[in-house]
């Protein structure tokens, strides 16, 4: 198949950034973060299965500044991907496809993801009694 002389569509940076395109890119980006973050779950579970010492080591890493930074990123990615994923599922059944609705639900998703991230971390610090 010859693909040499086909016209190319303009590249991403040609277009004006919009809330719709930004969230679309962020959905894919957070998906990659979460796919890698899922490997942390394997690390956590296998070290727990290995024994208390390995579990303590894994927990110390997660509770350290780098671990917390990673977990913060993963948790924001989770809440964003979750909320925006639900937005995608509504589109799949044909709901909310008007441009006004798409933009509105986009801002709603961004707000919900930020609120959930801040809320869950506040709850975690309060429950752990470290605040």
């Amino acid at each position, binding site marked *: 198949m010859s693909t040499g002389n086909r016209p190319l569509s303009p590249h991403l940076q040609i277009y004006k950034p919009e809330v719709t395109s930004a969230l679309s890119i962020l959905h894919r980006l957070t*998906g990659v973060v979460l796919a890698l973050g899922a*490997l942390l779950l*394997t690390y956590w*579970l296998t070290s*727990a*299965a290995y024994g208390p010492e390995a579990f303590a080591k894994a927990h110390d890493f997660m509770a350290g500044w780098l671990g917390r930074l990673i977990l913060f990123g993963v948790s924001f990615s989770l809440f964003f991907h979750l909320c925006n*994923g639900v937005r995608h599922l509504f589109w799949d059944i044909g709901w909310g496809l008007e441009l006004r609705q798409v933009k509105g639900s986009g801002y709603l998703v961004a707000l919900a993801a930020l609120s959930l991230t801040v809320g869950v971390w506040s*709850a975690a610090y309060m*429950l*752990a009694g470290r605040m």
Partner: protein
Amino acid sequence: MLRDKAHMRTPLSHVRGLGSAKEGTSLWWVQRLTAVALVPLFLWFVASVLTLTTGDYESWRAWIGEFGNSLLLILLIVVLYHHAQLGLQVIIEDYVHGEAAKTSSLIVLKLAYLFCGVGSVLSVLKLSLGS
């Protein structure tokens, strides 16, 4: 228009088997199916992790020892890893050009996520059924 839910195609287009997607629509459907399942599973998981922030090994063992918790955790792992590798597959298919590079990336991806998924499930079984 009545469609085969597992394929999201008209019966005629399915019989003809034309189009670059071939069986691609069934992957699209499985990605949505796993997405729907992950919404309640992750709400449960986040709520559970919030109660386990102290990192005490014994309380964590007690939590995973409960039948319902280990069941939901195994479901979460299986569905999450399947969803994650499907998502990464789409990204590889979009951005990795050349058949050799694409196919080898997909093989590494699939086997890595299968390996980590089985490792995680085995860890949960070992922890919940007692070592």
